[in-house]
């Protein structure tokens, strides 16, 4: 395990917003070819962690290495070189509204490569075939359903043949069948194309389907990290509660009654 190539390494990452600490000393490694799932409840900081890894947020302290480059110390143009080796799938796909499916996928190829338009159009067809949407080139994002948009988002993330793909809640808000299709797609891509995947999700069904390794985030800290089987059999009550989805347990979302009366009668 330890001798596998490390693609991403996060060291002592701290990030706060308006004085509220969201991430409090995160240490994390992502190995080549694996699918790492970062799970945790809403507001635990998992999206913030992802945004730090893709560089749209800068951390307060700590460092993030992608293939040995500390991205927290790079300037924009150096970072752009790193950005070309990864793809990102956004929660609601974030397709460019003003462009059709083909333009959405080919934009990055037209901008960053000197390929012939004919070749680019063939590549777009190949990417769409991968996600099962060939023939939809001329559709606008508004004409597609949620699941289709998500799949176009995946095709767009794959446009530059990245070795690393980030997914932000890829199955959120989809019906169970489409969610299953997306899970299978993520699995297929990482096996067929040897892509390293980092998936942020709170959908346990999806975690069981795709994860090689799981990191559980709670209150800005990593409380568990390990192979899927270890997490499944974990004795930690917080993890058990998260997997079963029980409202009763150590993770409290309901406010306790203390001081309630005082506050009402103040």
């Amino acid at each position, binding site marked *: 395990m330890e001798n596998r190539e490390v693609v991403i390494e996060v060291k002592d990452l701290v990030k706060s917003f308006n004085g509220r600490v969201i991430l409090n000393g995160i240490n994390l490694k992502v190995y080549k070819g694996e699918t790492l799932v970062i799970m945790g409840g809403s507001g635990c900081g998992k999206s913030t962690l992802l945004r730090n890894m893709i*560089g749209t947020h800068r951390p307060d302290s700590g460092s993030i290495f992608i293939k040995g480059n500390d991205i927290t110390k790079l300037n924009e143009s150096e970072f752009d070189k790193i950005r070309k080796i990864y793809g990102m799938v956004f929660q609601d796909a*974030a397709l*460019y509204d003003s462009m059709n499916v083909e333009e959405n996928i080919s934009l990055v190829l037209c901008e960053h490569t000197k390929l012939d338009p004919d070749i680019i159009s063939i590549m777009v067809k190949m990417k769409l075939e991968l996600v099962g949407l060939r023939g939809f080139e001329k559709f606008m994002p508004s004409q597609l359903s949620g699941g289709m948009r998500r799949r176009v988002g995946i095709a767009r993330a794959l446009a530059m043949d990245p070795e690393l793909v980030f997914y932000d809640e890829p199955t959120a808000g989809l019906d169970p069948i489409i969610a299953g299709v997306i899970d299978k797609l993520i699995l297929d891509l990482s096996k067929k194309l040897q892509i390293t995947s980092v998936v942020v999700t709170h959908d346990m069904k999806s975690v069981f389907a795709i994860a090689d390794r799981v990191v559980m985030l709670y209150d800005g800290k990593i409380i568990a990290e390990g192979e899927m089987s270890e997490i499944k059999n974990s004795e930690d009550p917080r993890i058990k509660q998260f997997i079963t989805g029980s409202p009763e347990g150590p993770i409290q979302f309901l406010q306790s009654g203390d001081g309630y009366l005082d506050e009402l009668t103040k």
Partner: protein
Amino acid sequence: MLNFIAAIGKRVLSTLSQIGGIFILLKATLFWVFIGPFIKKPISYRNIFQQMVFEGVNSLLIVFFVTFFTGIVLAMQSAYQLAQLGAEMYVASLVAVAMAREMGPVLAALVVAGRVGAAITAELGSMQVTEQVEALQTQALNPVRFLVVPRFIALMVMLPCLTILGVFAGMVGGYLMGVFSIGINSGVYIDITFKFLALKDIYTGLIKSVSFAMIIALIGCYMGLNAKGGAEGVGRATTVSVVTSFIMIILADCVLTGIFFFSQM
């Protein structure tokens, strides 16, 4: 009392940070207009062209409409005053100079701020809240180069063009009023118009309209790219963008007119 002072302080700070943000955006925009294309990547001409059509060509009718009727109004109002001096024929020069130096640039800018500035903020704002701007960033496509620069260049070219057309439309309106209603001889009207309308009247108007274009594009893009909080946030950003643009256009107009006035331009 302390709360009151704190609230004012907070407001001042946020305004200052917005002004700072707009200047940072201006710097980045100028970089991608003048330096970026030569050392990095060129700007997409297709994008600029699309924006020119939207910002300029599609604003033609409304700018024409507003300035044409303002020309007519100016002719009537000045005829009312000049009639007391028996100098109605100077309606011609008054309309021409007022349109070229003041009304043309300002009216065109206000119309464009309402139409184009609002559209820019709404579009970029909804791109921001639906993560499309972030998506551009992760694809190593600089949002300033990709979204701001085409809108900026297109407006810098198109607003002066609209202004020239607006000035002309206003003068036509004044001419129609002056000749067919006030009863000034057509030849005299045209003669007086060109006798008093100097080249500097035209170019001071154009200097104004270039500055207004900069204000509209920068404020529109800045407010859009900094929109937060879903649909409501986009709506708020759009309102703030249009109101701020209006105020800044009038302020800039006052300052520029002062500069031209005191430097005898």
